[in-house]
């Protein structure tokens, strides 16, 4: 089955890393010297891992992608922390959105049997979790909660949109 084996997951890993680091790293919009809008694709990788992947491995793979992104962003540990969090939170997102008759045993999060609506909700949870956790780790103190909230409000919708577009491109191929 396409998009479900180790090779396509590895390809996605490299593709998302490449896009994030060389393309979307350049995107940052803001006002008055402060930047509020970023685009993060990292959670897409975690979201697209097959459903049967053992949960500790989901956490571990997410961490690996996060730490790779960190190496290019020069924020060692921050992306890794957020990606690890998303990797851990994926099981709860899946549990929350579980269809009435459960997931099919062999499926990756496949558009065909889960539908666009399911995908959008799923990605929103992943991207939202990622951004909130990432900005919290970046600020590193509850004192800056305003920054965290504003950055999340700007970043989540745009990142979500880009993630949906990316998934639409990836799903039939790898």
């Amino acid at each position, binding site marked *: 089955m396409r998009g479900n084996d180790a090779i396509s997951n590895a390809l996605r890993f490299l593709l998302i890393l490449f896009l994030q680091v060389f393309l979307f790293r350049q995107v940052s919009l803001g006002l008055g010297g402060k930047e509020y809008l970023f685009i993060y694709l990292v959670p897409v990788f975690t979201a697209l891992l097959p459903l049967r992947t*053992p*949960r*500790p491995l*989901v*956490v*571990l793979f997410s*961490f690996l992608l*996060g730490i790779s992104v*960190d190496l290019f962003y020069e*924020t*060692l*540990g*921050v992306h*890794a*922390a957020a990606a*690890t*969090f998303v*990797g*851990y939170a994926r*099981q709860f997102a899946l549990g929350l959105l579980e269809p009435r008759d459960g997931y099919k045993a062999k499926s990756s999060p496949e558009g065909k049997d889960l539908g666009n609506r399911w995908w959008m909700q799923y990605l929103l949870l992943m991207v939202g979790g990622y951004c909130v956790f990432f900005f919290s*780790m*970046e600020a*590193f*103190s509850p004192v800056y909660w305003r920054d965290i909230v504003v950055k999340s409000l700007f970043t989540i919708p745009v990142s979500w949109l880009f993630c949906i577009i990316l998934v639409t491109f990836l799903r039939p191929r790898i």
Partner: protein
Amino acid sequence: MERILRIFFNNGSFFTFVGLQLLCLYLIINYNSNQAAIAAETWSIRSGKFKSALTTVNGYLDLREQNEIHRREIARLRSLLPESGYNITTEIDSIQDDSLLQRFNFLTTRIVNRSPYNPNNTLVIDRGARFSVQPGQGVMNESGLIGIVDRTTDRHARVLSILHQSTRISAGLANRGYGTLRWNGLDPRRMTLIDLPDYVPVAEGDTVYTTGFSNIFPTGQVIGTVEKTERQPGAGSLNLTVLLSNDPLRATHGYVVQDLFKEELGSLNEN
């Protein structure tokens, strides 16, 4: 054991998550300057709170030591009491059978109140006329002088501290040179000994004692040490700066010195 292993196995993702998060926190704090500063600040606030709590506890632990100091002081004073000494004057056929007649009574007291620090310091002790405390009696502690009783009530007495500008105490050196000790209102650790004749040899570091001439304090109580000598031109006298051996501002306990011979000695000075 099997249960513990099962818990680990069933919650593998949780433990992986926690382990990797800890690793991430370590990386964040060690490789990001902003987050490192925040972490250091938070740590210092927390540890500051911890340290102040520790100081409070240590204040109580210190009580044992303070008790020990007081016990030693009591033991020392007891050893000075006449009944703990062996009186040899009776052996050498002498008429001084009253050589140890009690002259001074020492009444323990606590300092319960004190004026704000100013050039004229006073304090209040919790012994008064009921314990026959009278104006003019001295107050001292084991390391130096504290003041002179000024006014009494039934249970309390007001004491003019030696750090009061109107205090005058007769003080001298081991070589019998003597003068008047007073305070100029500036440095609570130093007093001035004035009117010491300038032919008296004085060296820095000499000990200054009470003379007992004014019947307030016993003779030979240590007050402090000479820090500086200043010759008064034309007056033929020396002014000595005396570094006090105690800290009257922080004393908490003292002894009221009651001179039983005061009236008798005072009557000699009446005209």
